[in-house]
């Protein structure tokens, strides 16, 4: 295992020190492993709390700051944080207008945030929850855990963050969150597995000429495995299921081509070109885009594509100023 770390058990503690020292937008509650805005939001605005397993950086800690999150809970590597952490974050950021929990749809995350919301409600904090579930690689069904929350989380945190910053009330902020959730879909693939530090070796073996299609963001194997294709072919395998799942034709969209952590930017740009060509063909108009590493899976090589329907409201919120380590404009 080749990693820039000290002790395996200290990775998250050490990284939080580096985040606190480097990111002027945040301060860190090391006891609870919560990343908070350095300057709290004004009273009377809805606060946003997210969090999840570590290993997806910049998500979520890198999105704490003006215009996005108020707090992010850092779990163990790829493991949901605990209710205590979420509770500490929720209490710390509540500015009297309630708190929205942004939860990626994983059994662990959902259950832990549920318990935190129960405690917070007992303490008189108004808590609402949005569960992001955008991964079309997973068949949706009432009888299963449902779709994973992946790339859309980044776009949702930006857009809903802007709505909260504007001063909309909790119901209105939830409505925006639901709208994003309904209009967004993602699909990902991996060229290599990642290595969880505590495991010390790759989560799965992938032969030199094969790739996994339909992966999530936790180094889990995908839906199926096949011979590596061209970027053009891979783009098609990511875009087609998305377009098949939701009708984007004629819509304006925000597109993200996201790297899984170990993919060079030049390849992501190349993929963006292929994705754009496919969307052009399908009559989908790209209004905004993100290309880079925004929601990662440690040192996995690969990428994901996220599409989000973007009407004027969504675009307005997207363009609103944001000042975080991971996304910044207008400030």
């Amino acid at each position, binding site marked *: 295992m080749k990693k820039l770390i000290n002790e395996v058990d200290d990775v998250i503690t050490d990284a939080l020190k580096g985040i606190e020292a480097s990111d002027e937008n945040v301060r860190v509650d090391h006891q609870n492993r919560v990343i908070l805005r350095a300057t709290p939001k004004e009273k009377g605005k809805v606060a946003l709390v997210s969090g999840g397993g570590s290993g997806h950086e910049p998500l979520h800690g890198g999105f704490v700051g003006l215009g996005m999150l108020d707090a992010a809970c850092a779990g*163990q590597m*790829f*493991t949901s944080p*605990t209710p205590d952490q979420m509770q500490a974050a929720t209490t710390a950021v509540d500015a009297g207008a309630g708190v929205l929990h942004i939860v990626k749809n994983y059994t*662990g995350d959902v259950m*832990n945030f549920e318990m935190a919301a129960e405690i917070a409600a007992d303490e008189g904090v108004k808590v609402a929850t949005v569960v992001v579930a955008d991964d079309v690689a997973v068949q949706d069904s009432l009888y299963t855990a449902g779709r994973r929350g992946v790339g859309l989380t980044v776009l949702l945190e930006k857009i809903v963050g802007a709505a909260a910053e504007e001063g909309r009330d909790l119901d209105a902020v939830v409505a925006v969150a639901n709208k994003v959730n309904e209009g967004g879909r993602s699909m990902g693939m991996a060229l290599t597995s990642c290595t969880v530090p505590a*495991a010390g070796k790759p*989560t799965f073996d992938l032969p030199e000429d094969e790739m996994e299609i339909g992966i*999530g963001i936790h180094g889990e194997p995908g*839906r199926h495995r096949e011979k590596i294709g061209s970027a053009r072919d891979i783009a098609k395998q990511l875009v087609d299921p998305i377009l098949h799942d939701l009708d984007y034709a004629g819509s304006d969209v925000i597109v993200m081509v996201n790297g899984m952590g170990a993919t060079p930017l030049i390849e992501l740009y190349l993929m963006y070109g292929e994705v754009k060509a496919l969307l052009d063909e399908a009559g989908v108009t790209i209004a905004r885009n993100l290309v880079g590493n925004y929601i990662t899976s440690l040192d996995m090589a690969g990428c994901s594509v996220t599409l989000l329907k973007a009407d004027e409201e969504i675009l307005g919120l997207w363009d609103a100023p944001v000042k975080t380590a991971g996304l910044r404009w207008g400030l």
Partner: protein
Amino acid sequence: MTDNVSFKQLVAWLHEFGTLVNQNKSYLTELDSAIGDADHGANMARGMTSVLNLVDADGADGVGTLFKKAGMTLVSSVGGASGPLYGTFFMKFGTSTGAADQLTPEQLAAALRAGLDGVLARGKAELGDKTMVDAMVPAVEAMEKAFGEGESLAAGTAAAAEAARQGREATIEMLARKGRASYLGERSVGHQDPGATSTAYLFEALAASVDKA
């Protein structure tokens, strides 16, 4: 020797479970690598180490307090799916026993049933979904059946352990419908569920502990 479970035996149960989890940490993580995210061993080891630190410092509590603390410690130290599930299991177990300082076989079975109900309510998994539930349900049922037929504490816990092991084996052929393994669809078939595996250790540890004075 009475056929009740003493406080000391229940503490021994937690220790034995912690030992099994720690000994099999890499194995649990390996199982989770195949169909999950390669952390179940680390999660359970972290949780049980926290629990045991607390248990050692805490010998004076009654059974209810002990297990509620153990459950809360798991919830606040594990995270993931297994934290709330095992945490709820122990908390409900402790609520069921109340301030007792030993348990009759019937009280033990009732407490385990309460824990199981907590897991089902929290996780909403059903039998056959390829989760820890597939080891836990047969284990509790086997014990209830054994005590109902007047079997000894040792026999009832041994039956539970055996049923948990069989339940664990049965997850291999299942198609996952809950937890991370569900994302794999058909590819989840042929792999043993990590959570069912740790649950089998839980009942194995119980059987081993009541066997001791």
